[in-house]
Structures are given as C-alpha cells and as structure tokens.
C-alpha cells in the first residue's frame, strides 16, 4: 500500500522536475555573463525579446559583478561576456579567453548623496573636486568593494582626485562587497555618498533621503563592451549563436533598440558601436 503511495509521490516529483526543466534539452540558447547594472535597470528585458523574435535564440543572462562575470567566462561557463571595465576586458582578450572585444554602448555614473549634503558637493560638475571634499570632511561614503566595473571606476576616480584611497580610508569609507542595489540600500540607510550607474539609480525604488549630487563630468562615462568566449579554450562555447548575439548588439537594429530603452522618459544607455567594416 505505502510503497504504491511512495511510488506515485516520486513519479509526481519526476514529472514536476521534468516540467520545470524543458530547456535542459539542447535548444538554441546561450548564456551571457553580464553585470547587475544591465539587468537591474531592465535593459535586457527590453532588448532580448526583440533578439529572440528575430533569431529564435534564448539568451540566459547571469547577472554578476564585472570581475565575477569575467571569471565565469574564463571558466567557460558563459558563451558571451557583456561587461563594463575596459582594462579588465582587454586583459581577458590578451590572455586568450575572449575572441574580440566590441564597444556596444555607454552610460554614465552619478555621485549619489544625501540631500543634506554634508560634504557640500551638490551642484559641482567636477567629480574629482567632489571626491576630494568628501575625503577632506570624512563624509560617509559607501564603496562597492567587489571588483565590479563600478568599483573599478570608483577606484580610478579617487586616483584622478589625487587621493590614495588605500591610505586615506577610515571609518567614513565603507566597503560592503555587494552589488549596486545593496550599495544604494546601504547608502540610503546611512545617509552616505555612493557612486552608482545612472540606470540602477533611476530604477531604484528605495531612495530615502538620497539624490544625485554630481553628474555630467566626462570622466563619469562608462563604456560597455561585449566579447565571445574563446571556443578554442572552451569547446563547449556556442560560438555561432553567441556571435550572432554580438553581431546583433552592434548592428544598427540592436543599437537602435538600446537607444530606445528609457525609464521615466530618460535614455539610460547610449549606443556607440563602431559600424562594422565588412
């Protein structure tokens, strides 16, 4: 009696799992390791359905920090890497893990801070001066501290401001080691300054007393690049489907759909792929 019940329970389980994993079969799908900023802003939700409709290829996005996304590619666990830290990307190509790097688009970073503005940086367009003031006043600052593209950009900007952050960091400088959203949540809770990409900031719901403090400095531009993981290093890479995705991203059609993505009427990403010389 009971064995029959157990049997039917197991059969039900198998059915449930089978039903939940139809995509396990080798269909047309690729894994793209990308960043939290592209996913959390909703960009992929906007462009992927168009790509799928055109090619029938399912794009599975694993959203990680840039450092982790590159590592996922390095291990062969993704077919395409779509991130924003040019120096790290070029190293990835040099080491032979990626085939070729394409510029896709840029967005910009914004310095977010509490409306009370304890460092008095609001309104300036000079990001280096603003960071220097924050450091001088020991105003609370949240750093991603996770080797992400945004973290790399933050470290680069401290250098531009002439500050050796390793030496200057104190209790005012908190490295949380988490994603962009978590950093914004922390900044909102502590009334701290934080560097964010504009997309995540615009779609972020839990702003508290935070607002944009500094924006518009050219040095805040943030370039995104896309690369196919080298199939010679990892034969499992779906090179053809992956390259089709890359080709589409940099094609006039893909570029147009990126430019059309808006939140609250604001364009988040500015396509700037070089048109391919065929």
């Amino acid at each position, binding site marked *: 009696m009971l064995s029959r019940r157990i049997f039917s329970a197991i059969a039900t389980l198998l059915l449930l799992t089978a039903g939940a994993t139809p995509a396990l079969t080798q269909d047309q799908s690729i894994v793209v390791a990308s960043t939290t900023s592209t996913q959390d802003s909703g960009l992929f939700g906007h462009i992927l359905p168009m790509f799928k409709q055109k090619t029938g290829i399912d794009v599975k996005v694993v959203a990680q920090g840039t450092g982790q996304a590159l590592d996922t590619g390095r291990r062969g666990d993704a077919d395409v890497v779509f991130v924003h830290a040019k120096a790290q990307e070029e190293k990835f190509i040099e080491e032979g893990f990626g085939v070729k790097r394409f510029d896709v688009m840029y967005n910009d970073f914004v310095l977010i801070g509490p409306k009370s503005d304890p460092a008095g940086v609001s309104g300036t367009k000079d990001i280096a001066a603003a960071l220097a003031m924050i450091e001088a006043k020991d105003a609370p600052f949240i750093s991603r501290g996770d080797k992400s593209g945004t973290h790399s950009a933050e470290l680069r900007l401290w250098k531009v401001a002439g500050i050796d952050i390793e030496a200057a960091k104190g209790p005012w400088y908190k490295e949380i080691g988490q994603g962009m959203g978590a950093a914004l949540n922390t900044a909102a809770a502590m009334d701290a300054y934080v560097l964010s990409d504009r997309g995540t900031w615009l779609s972020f719901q*839990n702003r508290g007393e935070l607002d944009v403090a500094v924006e518009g400095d050219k040095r805040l531009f943030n370039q995104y690049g896309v690369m196919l993981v080298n199939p010679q290093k990892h034969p499992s890479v779906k090179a053809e489907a992956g390259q089709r995705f890359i080709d589409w991203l940099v094609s006039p059609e893909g570029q147009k759909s990126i430019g059309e993505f808006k939140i609250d009427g604001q364009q988040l990403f500015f396509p700037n792929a070089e048109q391919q010389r065929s």
Partner: protein
Amino acid sequence: MSEELSAWQLIASGDATLFAIVRLSLAVTLSAVAIAAVIGLPLGALLALARFPGRSAVVVVLNGFMGLPPVIVGLSVYLLLSRSGPLGEFGLLFTPAAMVIAQAVLVLPIIAALTRQTIEDLWHEYREELTAMDVGPLGQVATLLWDSRFSLFTALLAGFGRAAAEVGTVMIVGGNINGFTRTMTTTVALETSKGNLPLAVGLGLILIFLIILINAAAWGVRLWSEQRAG
C-alpha cells in the same frame, strides 16, 4: 514583473511569471529532498546500527554538517559543475539540475543525522526482540525505518524547510536566470537589490505561507496514515 505591482496584486492577477517561479522553487526543493531522503534514510539507519572504529567521529562530523554554510556548498558544487571542473562536460551549471544537486548536498546531512538519532533510540528498544528473531542487518534496518516512519517524517520536513528557505546555493549554481533558474528566494534577493522592498517582503510572505501550507499538508497525511496504522 513590473515594479509598480505589489505581491498581492501579483497573486490576485494570477501572474504567470510568479507561478512559474513558485513551481520551479517547489520542484527543485522537493526533488532535492527526495534525493537526499533516498540516500540519507538508509545511510542514517546503517550508521545507527553499525559499530566500527571511529564511528563517534563520523557521527560528530555528520551532526556538524547539518550546519553546512549554503554559500560553501554552492561554491563547491559550482567548481565541480563548472566547465573547467571535473563534471564540466555535462554542462549542468546554471540549470535547475545544478540547483537540485546543491540543495540535496545541503539537506542530506540533516536527514541522515536526524535519522541516525531516531533509529538509534528505537534500536535500544527493539534490540533484544530483533536479535532473538534472528533478523539480518538489512531486515533490521528496514524494520526500524518502517516503525519510526512518523518520526522520520519530521526529519524530511526539517530538510525541506532548510532547502526551501535558502538562497546562497541556488543563487551561485543557478545564476538566477530569468524564467529559467529564478526561484522564490533569489527573486526576493533580486527585488531587494533593486530597492523594491515592499515587493520583496510580499514575495517573502508568500514563500512563508507556502512552507506552512506544505507542512500542514504533511501533518494531515501523517494523521491520516497514523489512524490507518491504528
């Protein structure tokens, strides 16, 4: 899922994405518990009866593994299933199957350790009888498992609770891919990182409600079968 919607509106409107997420969460967790039970119940029972040098150490380690940190289990399974890892050729990373494996690893020590304790307690009661009846070791294990089935049910529920509630392993090995490996807990983590706290809390409440519902159903089954067993 649109940010403007609250979790309750999602339920009321029968949101297809939400139901797919709930279904995947339950399928992954129940499969993991089933696999862990098939291995853990006999393993725990054997450990209860077997006497060998170093047995105490094994029992202590097994009990300790009930507290395995999910992020460590996730990372180990990740390295194992990665294309660069020993099982890479199967291409299981970032699939629901990877999540089932990771959760089964997490739950197995809980089921095995609780089974060992339950069976060992019962063994003291049954020892003379079973020895006198000259039952072989496998027969003993089967008898003890069968007679403690109602207590072992709780061990399975403990495993289920652990698997249903955790986010660390499934996030790492599943990748939280929209429509493919996104579960209840990883959705809550994602919505939190988007600063969408009300939706995150709402989804969390749905998850708690589901866990209680499943425990209630399990309780009902137990009562029913206890009555039948007399």
